[in-house]
């Protein structure tokens, strides 16, 4: 039988999704209008610092937030609306999540093998023997040496990298359609990181599942993701295919983020360009663009109006004065001349840093 090419299947569709936490001071708008699509077989990296809303966003999709939240907008998974509905039926069947710290996500008093075989028996109705066999298979797949022996070990007997591999096996055991990896390698050594990331990508390709990697590390995003979505203050700043993002960066935040990281090929003692200012208050935040207070390009209207999302093919961004455009250049120039932005931020460089 001829193998038909699979038409991209929209697995996840977000439309103006919002999540707010009810706090003493008011509603904390952790996610403030996020829209994107994710197709089977694709990897999306969501990049942002803490407070950007990336973790809340994905926990919201999974339905792992507490009870004092207000959800609105739309999240469709395989066509079915998830917002304000019970996601539990997807757990362990179609949606799986891997967390940052495998030590706290694994049950410390249960053998690791069992933690994989249980879902197999529960959700796929395997017998004990079948489940064990499949678990050992999975362990081999994820690169755990001596898999049969490891089956009977406890989490504390394994290294961080091994534990994360166990987590991945658990996630894979249920053959999910969507895998969300929340900072999967942040707590791991850099040499192990590479293997775990390689593994995730390999597995994803083989099973054609959709994957979202949440990370604060642009380097990780670039190497492994098809598309990158940059978040700040609960909103999407820029969304583009990975290479496009790096080569045709449009949003000043993305650029600022990249400039603030020390790079390997810079000589020693290179002065870094940090992003001045503080993250926005998500309860009582700015009316306009969330990044305006810290943006080198900010003009008056940035402070009051929320920029619409400009879409150019597969590259979208929310900015009035994007980098590489005339408006952007003019905005920067006028700020440089004044010596400060509309938000009062001092301009350091005399030229745009692209």
């Amino acid at each position: 039988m001829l193998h038909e090419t699979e038409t991209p299947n929209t697995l996840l569709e977000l439309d103006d999704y919002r999540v707010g936490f009810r706090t003493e001071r008011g509603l904390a708008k952790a996610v403030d209008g996020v829209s994107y699509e994710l197709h089977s077989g694709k990897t999306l990296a969501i990049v942002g610092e803490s407070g950007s809303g990336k973790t809340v966003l994905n926990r919201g999709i999974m339905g792992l937030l507490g009870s004092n939240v207000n959800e609105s907008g739309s999240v469709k998974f395989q066509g079915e609306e998830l917002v304000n509905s019970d996601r539990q039926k997807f757990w362990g069947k179609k949606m799986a999540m891997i967390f940052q710290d495998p030590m706290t996500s694994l049950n410390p008093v249960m053998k690791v093998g069992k933690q994989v075989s249980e879902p197999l028996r529960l959700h796929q109705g395997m017998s004990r023997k079948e489940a064990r066999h499949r678990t050992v298979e999975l362990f081999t797949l994820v690169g755990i040496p001596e898999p049969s022996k490891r089956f009977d070990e406890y989490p504390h007997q394994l290294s961080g990298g091994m534990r994360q591999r166990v987590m991945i096996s658990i996630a894979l055991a249920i053959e999910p359609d969507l895998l969300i990896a929340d900072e999967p390698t942040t707590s791991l050594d850099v040499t192990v990181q590479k293997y775990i990331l390689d593994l995730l990508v390999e597995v994803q390709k083989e099973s054609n599942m959709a994957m979202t990697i949440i990370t604060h590390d642009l380097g990780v995003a670039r190497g492994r993701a098809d598309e990158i979505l940059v978040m700040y203050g609960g909103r999407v700043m820029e969304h583009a295919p990975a290479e496009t993002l790096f080569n045709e960066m449009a949003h000043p935040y993305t650029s600022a983020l990249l400039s603030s990281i020390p790079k390997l090929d810079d000589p020693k003692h290179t002065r870094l360009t940090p992003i001045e200012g503080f993250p926005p208050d998500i309860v009582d935040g700015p009316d306009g663009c969330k990044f305006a207070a810290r943006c080198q390009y900010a003009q008056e209207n940035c402070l009051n109006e929320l920029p619409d999302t400009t879409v150019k093919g597969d590259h979208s961004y929310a900015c009035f004065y994007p980098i590489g455009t005339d408006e952007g250049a003019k905005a920067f120039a006028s700020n440089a001349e004044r010596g400060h932005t509309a938000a009062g931020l001092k301009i350091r460089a005399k030229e745009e840093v692209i």
Partner: protein
Amino acid sequence: MAGSGNNHLRENTDDTLLRVENLVVEFPSGRRNKVHAVSDISFDIMEGETLGIVGESGCGKSTTAKAIIQLPKPTAGKVEYQGTNLTELDKEGMRQQRPSIQMIYQDPISSLNPRRTVFNIVNEGTRVWSTEHGAAQEQKVDEMIEAVGLDPREARTRRPHEYSGGQCQRISVARALVLDPKVIICDEPVSSLDVSVQARILNMLQDMKDEYKLTLLFISHDLSVVKNVSDRVAVMYLGKICEIGDGDLIYEKPTHPYTRLLLAAIPDPKNKHKDITDILEGELPSPLNPPSGCRFRTRCPRATEKCAAEEPEFRQIGNDDHWVACHFPHIEDDDLGPNDEISWPPDRQE
């Protein structure tokens, strides 16, 4: 055990501020075992230099930091600060030396007493050492708080939980600087901070270093950060130093297989080493029972029997400040000295 030797140590001059020789730190584990956290390492730091120690978890870099300030005292070895051997001092003697060597810690929140005001925290150094508690002292503390970018008036009433992670690190720095130290040991100071905050703190450290003529020992697992901050870099693995020398040289031409693998693994968009495809095998060996000879040999694609039998000593690369402890380092032809053996094992290709 011959160890990796001290060929790489520079001459002990008046400018040598810190000189560590044959440092060993071992912890008992259970009744019979020992954790070999740091096994015979040596390095020196000249005044005004920044030495970066980089390595992954379990390499012993944090333990080294604490051993230098004798908290706790190392199992063996010498730690010379301006000629005085700290390991030979008694408790009070060491205490007297403390103001000169200060430390910044990884966890910004945990390193500050949650029950005290920030002003009090920064002031603690002067309270411990000074018998006067006058306005002059308080002013010095205020100035220091301002120097790290915080408001001294607010600091009088606020406590650490009211500040962000980056700000807490600044408070730590202020606390350390109040004692006019000459050396500051930074133990993963930016690892728990947000990316954009890291840059600010690193810049601030550089500024403080310039302003107060400091000498830094900077410890981190993040290679990019270490490269940015340091003059010289030491790469550690399982309690040993693999490679040490000028930072730019090591990053340009890494010679130790471990260094090369570390660099290759960095997910930097512009990583020039990312094409190195040597496979890193296996798991980190246990520090309870480290491999004989070269500790890296169990995971090294170039290892031979010689590596198991004999621990490699430091050899210089060319005439540069670049030293490597390896029997088969990746050395380019033009860096081979006249008496150097061929640096790759005959049965394997570079």
